[in-house]
């Protein structure tokens, strides 16, 4: 019993001493020297100071949604604690304009462009690159969460508020605005469909050469390249020398991150060293031809260019649009315009019975005149050659000859079944002139 009392006393003494030792451990001590509010204020001040620290301003290449859109280059100059001036390569207005900005606490410290300027053009629900992004514009953000300064490069690191895309502000050169202006001229060299609608990419790696079809969505700044075995997609951002690629394009272990424009060769070249390279050039003919010309002439097939829906299609080339405009100019004194160009092949199974039909729409009463150009066809070397076989009303033929001459040129037409649709679910076929590959007309298949 006495022994038990001794044990209990000992336990009490041990417990008491443990309590006392515990008390000596001060768990309430601040982990940081400053309070959260003080640290937040300090970080805000750090960002404000950093933003105003560059005398030449900042350059940012912003890829709003890698995987579906390319990048846009911005120039920012933070003048004081609330005023910023900026411009960008979003459109052709390079005026440097002032607006307000603020550094505020969101999910962390963020830079917010609080009144309208160029950066907001990416976030305009009324101005999407195409109908696929109606209501969402270019998926852009104009609030950037601050993630600190890159010690090695001095870049300011941000992530977008909505989608957490990384955006870096790099110190601008003294002529950054001019660089942006120059980059638009470079962009034209890549997007100028007056050269030809055909472009390809030739990739040479370890002595092996591969050819890819090249398709650039100009508004989205997004490229698809493909051949029979491989396909790749990537966004691009123009600069004064060429363009950068994001995500980085990896072909056979080689990474391609930028292309430079070579004026003499009229090519965009990515020189990867050791003889490895990738080149983008305009061509006179498709690099991977199809035999879709054999498909379209099957009995009772019909295809139609419908002006209301296809004039603005990205696959309708600028040269085609120019010719359509010239046809309309000739028709306008008579209050008519070109409404459709339709092909009817092998009518009722008769291979000699084919029609290019021009529908002319009256602005007065909405009626249409169908002007038929009868043609015969041949398929030669992957091309469809249409030959004149008389008109339904020869007196009207001169009105449409600007387009008709191209469609019936003896060099023929390259036909391609496209993998996209325009507004309606109809399959899209394009008709491109072999004599003038800057002419491409877009049509709906009617079967």
């Amino acid at each position: 019993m006495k022994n038990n009392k001794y044990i209990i006393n000992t336990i009490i003494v041990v417990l008491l001493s443990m309590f006392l030792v515990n008390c000596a451990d001060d768990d309430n001590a601040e982990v940081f020297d400053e309070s959260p509010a003080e640290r937040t204020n300090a970080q805000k001040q750090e960002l404000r100071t950093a933003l105003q620290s560059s005398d030449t301003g900042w350059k940012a290449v912003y890829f709003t949604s890698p995987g579906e859109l390319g990048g846009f280059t911005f120039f920012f100059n933070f003048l004081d604690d609330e005023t910023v001036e900026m411009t960008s390569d979003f459109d052709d207005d390079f005026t440097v304009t002032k607006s307000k900005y603020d550094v505020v606490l969101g999910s962390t410290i963020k830079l917010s462009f609080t009144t309208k300027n160029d950066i907001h053009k990416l976030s305009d629900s009324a101005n999407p690159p195409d109908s696929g992004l109606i209501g969402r514009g270019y998926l852009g953000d104009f609030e950037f969460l601050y993630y600190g300064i890159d010690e090695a490069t001095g870049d300011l690191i941000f992530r977008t508020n909505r989608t957490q895309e990384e955006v870096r502000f790099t110190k601008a050169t003294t002529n950054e605005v001019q660089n942006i202006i120059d980059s638009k001229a470079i962009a034209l060299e890549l997007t100028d469909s007056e050269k030809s609608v055909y472009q390809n990419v030739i990739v040479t790696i370890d002595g092996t050469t591969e050819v890819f079809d090249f398709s650039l969505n100009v508004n989205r700044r997004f490229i698809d390249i493909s051949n029979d075995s491989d396909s790749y997609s990537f966004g691009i951002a123009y600069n004064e020398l060429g363009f950068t690629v994001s995500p980085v394009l990896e072909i056979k272990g080689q990474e391609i991150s930028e292309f430079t424009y070579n004026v003499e060769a009229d090519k965009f070249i990515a020189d990867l060293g050791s003889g490895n390279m990738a080149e983008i050039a305009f061509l006179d003919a498709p690099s991977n031809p199809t035999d879709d010309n054999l498909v379209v002439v099957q009995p009772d097939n019909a295809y139609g260019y419908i002006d209301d829906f296809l004039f603005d299609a990205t696959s309708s080339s600028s040269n085609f649009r120019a010719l359509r405009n010239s046809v309309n100019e000739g028709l306008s004194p008579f209050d008519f315009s070109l409404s459709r160009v339709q092909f009817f092949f092998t009518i009722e199974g008769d291979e000699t019975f084919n029609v290019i039909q021009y529908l002319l729409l009256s602005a007065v009463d909405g009626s249409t005149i169908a002007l038929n150009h009868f043609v015969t066809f041949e398929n030669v070397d992957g091309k469809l050659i249409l030959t004149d076989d008389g008109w339904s009303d020869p007196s009207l033929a001169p009105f449409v000859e600007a387009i008709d001459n191209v469609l019936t040129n003896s060099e023929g037409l390259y036909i391609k079944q496209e993998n996209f649709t325009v507004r309606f679910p109809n399959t899209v076929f394009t008709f491109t002139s072999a004599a003038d590959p800057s002419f491409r007309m877009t049509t709906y298949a009617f079967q």
Partner: protein
Amino acid sequence: MNNINNKYRRLGSACVYIVAVIAIVILASCKQEDSFEGSDLDTSTPKLTALDSYIRTNYVSKYNIDVLYRWNENVVDNNRFLFPPIEENVQPVLEVVEKIWLDSYSEVGGADFVKLVAPRQLLLVGGRNFNRSGTILLGLAEGGKRITLFETDLVDVSDRANITRFLSTIQHEYCHILNQTIPFDEEGYGRITPSEYTAQWFNTSIAEARELGFISDYSRSSVVEDFAEMVNFMLINSNEEFNTIIDGISNIEARESIRSKEAIVADYFDKQWDIDIYELQEVTARNTQEVINN
């Protein structure tokens, strides 16, 4: 016994001693307390631009309405792709809103009318608010507290049609706020054209909707929207213009339906708000004309 008393006395002195020590410790603790110095939070007075001062004078002080034009992600739908207005566009637009909406209601309803029954915030957004379906959202009235106005950058103060379109959003949304404060007779109103309300209202044109007894296509979406559209069309048009619209409808029944709705609207404004809507219509038309003339 004496011994026990003595023990109590000593215990008492000991207690007094302990209390004294504790009191000294507490007082000493107080002496070491840090004094309060300012706040870690930024409590400095914000810098006011000329625009901010205009808003304080003409909206906050005068009508108890705050105007939000700088971006604040907490008051907008972050799933939408919207942006703040161009700063220079804000004041001209607010001046138009003040003249056509606030001044007109104040003149007819009394100086304090809008002050008492008004949204507490006007939120200005620069561009259009496109839905993914391709339709456009013109405005929002959230719980009677905030009216969001889109398209601030697109207002052209010299173009009547343009101003009318922008103001129609306010007239429509403000009617919702009035209705949220004092409801109208929804049941009676809904009996006039009961079978023509539809969620697919955008499939018919305004002209087609009018032949069905509705003042606009959007009126067909619900009784509440129909009522707000009636008020909107009565206030963005002069009485003459409004009558021309109604007289242009060929279906006699449709014309009568709209006139019946008009009567309920006039009765609601008269009985619930002591406002003669035809007087309000006249004043609003006059103020609209003054804006365009200037």
